[in-house]
């Protein structure tokens, strides 16, 4: 609710760009999650980002509690609270959309671009259940819709170049806004060669190329009624994954929706929004560019989702109520064809996802009660009905090899509850929350068939008999402000029962040539995940400020093994200098030694690293038009390093000079 209000305010303020200069100098790296979403410029690209044209991935990576798991230079997988996509709910404008790759090479965040988005809303734990069930949190990528502000035609172009990888990007944005009608369209193109790690070491198969176009239209039926449509088409080709044995020749998404919005400030029901949507993804893995593979294979995957939601906001006295009724139907199908090295033998074919149809419908209700000027309490609940059906006979039969009594249909009920209490004073505030949440296993966890995980070198088999994963969560945060110094602590703890993870089954022979063995998805009795962050900032003057953040994370399972992909001790410090037309940020960022790594789940110890970045920005006005320059050096010292989040220890980018220019014509 609070955020919606903010967005509203910011949208109304769109004309007064001067008033929003401060958004250029966002100290995002040390901000709390919730603050990421407060910055509501019309577009993510021009203002919010240090690099105007950096990808959604790079943008998310800058936030404190989101870490991106990297398998290459493209399509990074977000992780919140040390939990990856299986435990998160990632949506686009509240629309459910599911990747079509069995190996997580296409997180949803890879199918939109910054040019499409207004903002990204990141929620931790059970706060993130507005659109669906999750354990770790949610990411909602919110599409930039224009408003009926009669501002006429606005054009902006962006150009970017980075030396590392010879990375070129270009974007064009056209917006027409009238009294009753708006139409916006944007396109963006990105192309990068292989990047180089520190010491000029080329990372093979790290190239990518993509374009993204979107078309948005809105029509105002009457004062209170509006209809909108959004269409996004995203196509990536020739994407290399240096950490994986295969690349991607095509990742294509078509994302469409039609929305009816009713808004009335005078009635109890403030807004009522109904959306119908459809999206389809085609993802084709390919190894034709790899010179040396044990066997050539094709692995295409498809994911189609149809869905709707109806969302209402109500306000009566102290109550701010949000109701969201939603449903979707998804089909996920993936195949694998292996081309025999012995030409006299036929090709080998199997389904890796047996055309799983997921039908979900659920209801979410949240009430935010302002007890008094300082205290707010909120409570939310989501109840859902979740049904899986295996539609492909062959795929069903191949799972029956492992589960002879398997039924083709399974249903579950899912519950999520959360409540939090907020106390706010001028100089300090505190939030305390508790939550309980459940999630259904993902398609891979429930129905995957010999999915090779190059991280631990095991083939994974789904387990349709998995129970719901359940989490109890406690979170707290507090911020103090003494004159120019701000200090903050935030922490969350998750106790997850039936924690779904692969368990070695020595009785099954691996399918992938050279695999270490087979793991079947199973549940640990329980697992614990904990994180704590200390943030501080000092304002030396209006122009000078210092931010820092230190984080510690912990995760272990009931088998007394560390969980994989748990962030080690991390730190970040930055000095900001900003005036109305110029800003500079010098940033030091690093991790400690990964001492609590998990060899059992394929991890090795990642050494500590520190990198130094410099970001600079200028704004110039030419008549009423605006020119924004962003430039800088990343990894100034050309450190050769990889982090715990780099799949199979692929090294990260070495020194990189970048420059982006945006020109906005009113």
């Amino acid at each position: 609710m609070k955020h919606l209000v903010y967005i509203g305010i910011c949208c109304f303020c769109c004309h007064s760009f001067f008033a929003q200069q401060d958004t250029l100098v966002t100290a995002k790296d040390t901000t709390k999650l919730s603050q990421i979403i407060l910055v509501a410029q019309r577009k993510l690209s021009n203002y919010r980002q240090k690099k105007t044209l950096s990808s959604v991935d790079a943008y998310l990576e800058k936030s404190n509690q989101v870490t991106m798991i990297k398998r290459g230079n493209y399509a990074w997988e977000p992780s919140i609270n040390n939990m990856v996509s299986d435990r998160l709910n990632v949506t686009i404008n509240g629309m459910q959309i599911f990747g079509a790759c069995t190996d997580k090479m296409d997180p949803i965040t890879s199918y939109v671009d910054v040019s499409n988005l207004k903002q990204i809303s990141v929620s931790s734990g059970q706060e993130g259940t507005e659109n669906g069930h999750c354990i770790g949190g949610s990411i909602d990528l919110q599409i930039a819709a224009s408003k009926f502000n009669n501002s006429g035609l606005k054009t902006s172009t962006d150009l970017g170049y980075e030396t590392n990888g010879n990375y070129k990007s270009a974007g064009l944005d056209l917006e027409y806004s009238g009294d009753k009608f708006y139409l916006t369209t944007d396109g963006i193109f990105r192309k990068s060669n292989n990047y180089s790690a520190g010491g000029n070491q080329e990372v093979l198969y790290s190239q990518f190329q993509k374009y993204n176009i979107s078309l948005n239209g809105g029509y105002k039926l009457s004062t209170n009624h509006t209809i909108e449509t959004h269409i996004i088409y995203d196509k990536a080709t020739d994407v290399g994954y240096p950490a994986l044995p295969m690349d991607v020749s095509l990742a294509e998404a078509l994302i469409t929706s039609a929305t009816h919005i009713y808004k009335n400030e005078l009635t109890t029901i403030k807004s009522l929004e109904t959306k119908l949507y459809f999206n389809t993804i085609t993802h084709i893995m390919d190894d034709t560019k790899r010179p040396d593979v044990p066997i050539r294979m094709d692995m295409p995957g498809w994911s189609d989702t149809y869905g709707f939601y109806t969302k209402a906001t109500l306000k009566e006295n102290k109550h701010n109520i949000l109701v969201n009724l939603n449903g979707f139907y998804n089909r996920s199908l993936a195949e694998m064809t292996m081309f025999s090295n012995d030409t006299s033998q036929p090709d080998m074919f199997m389904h890796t996802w047996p055309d799983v149809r997921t039908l979900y419908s659920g209801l979410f209700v949240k009430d935010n009660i302002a007890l008094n000027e300082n205290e707010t309490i909120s409570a939310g609940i989501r109840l859902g009905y979740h049904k899986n059906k295996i539609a492909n006979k062959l795929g069903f039969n191949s799972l029956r090899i492992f589960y002879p009594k398997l039924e083709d249909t399974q249903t579950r009920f899912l519950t999520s509850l959360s409540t939090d209490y907020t106390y706010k004073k001028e100089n300090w505030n505190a939030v305390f929350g508790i939550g309980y949440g459940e999630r259904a296993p993902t398609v891979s966890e429930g129905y995957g068939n010999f999915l090779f995980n190059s991280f631990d070198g095991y083939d994974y088999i789904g387990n349709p008999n998995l129970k719901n994963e359940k989490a109890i969560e406690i979170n707290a945060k507090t911020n103090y402000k003494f004159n120019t110094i701000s200090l903050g602590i935030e922490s969350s703890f998750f106790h997850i029962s039936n924690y779904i993870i692969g368990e070695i089954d020595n009785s099954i022979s691996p399918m992938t040539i050279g695999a270490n063995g087979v793991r079947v998805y199973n549940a640990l009795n329980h697992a614990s995940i904990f994180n704590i962050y200390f943030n501080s900032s000092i304002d030396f003057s209006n122009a000078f400020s210092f931010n820092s953040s230190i984080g510690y994370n912990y995760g272990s399972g009931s088998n007394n093994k560390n969980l994989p992909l748990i962030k080690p001790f991390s730190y970040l410090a930055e000095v900001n200098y900003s005036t109305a037309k110029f800003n500079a940020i010098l940033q030091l960022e690093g991790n400690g030694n990964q001492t609590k790594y998990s060899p059992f789940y394929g991890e090795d110890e990642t050494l500590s690293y520190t990198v130094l970045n410099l970001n600079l920005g200028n704004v110039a006005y030419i008549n009423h038009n605006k020119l924004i320059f962003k430039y800088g050096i990343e990894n100034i010292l050309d450190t050769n390093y990889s982090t715990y989040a780099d799949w199979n220890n692929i090294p990260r980018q070495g020194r990189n000079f970048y420059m982006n220019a945006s020109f906005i014509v009113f």
Partner: protein
Amino acid sequence: MKLKYIFPIIFITLFTTACSTDDDESPKTSNETEGLIKIQDIVNNNQTIELYSKTGAFQTGYNNVNIRIKNNNDQTYFENASISWMPIMQMPMMQHSCPHSTISKVSDKKTLYTGSVIYQMTNTDGSGWSITVNYSIDNVDYTVTETISVSQAEKQNVTSFMGSDDKRYIVALVEPLEPTIGINDMMVGLYKMENMMSFPAVENYKIMLDPRMPGMGNHSSPNNTNLSFNADDAMYHGNLSLTMTGYWFLNLKLLNGSDDILKGEDVTEQNEKSSLYLELEF
């Protein structure tokens, strides 16, 4: 405005994906050889013996054969014949037969008879085999012998070998005829060569099964079961799990009633395959 385009797309896709594609059973026709292809006619004066199978040709391994006898005088088919047969392979120095079943009437058919034969070998040009059909109609006995052509199957679906007990055996794959991904019912025939002309089924031995894909690093599959003897059809039955299409190497090990290994070895890192095996491809 866009709704106009989006709704049809949504609905068309919904409906096309929602439709199921179950095939209806085709109604039974009066033609009793429906679905069968003629292998060969054997003319014997006033009668013609018609041999049919699903594929229309004999090949090495297990063949399920359908037979009917035509009255050449009035083009009708006899419904009360009793038939027996003897396949013979003519070798340069000797001749021998092969495992073959008795011939019985197909239960729900009037004119059709069925039996099975397992050719353990053939000449490269398909020559060498002949078949003698003995039959009686209305208490009159007839006999006819005709050469037939048996082609070599692409994959090894039958093997004849000397067991460690110095007896010669024949193992033949009967099912699955049309293997699919998943758990297949596997049926194997096991016969002992008593002499050149007699190949009785062997009872109550055990056949251990270990299917592998040599093209996939000798990948195996779970939940296979060893083959055990079923007295009803005198065949060995078990479960065969096939995780994907392609070429499968079915490693076998033959054990007699007292668990002595007669032929075959375990598959290990050092020993990629058993000397007793069958092959499958789909």
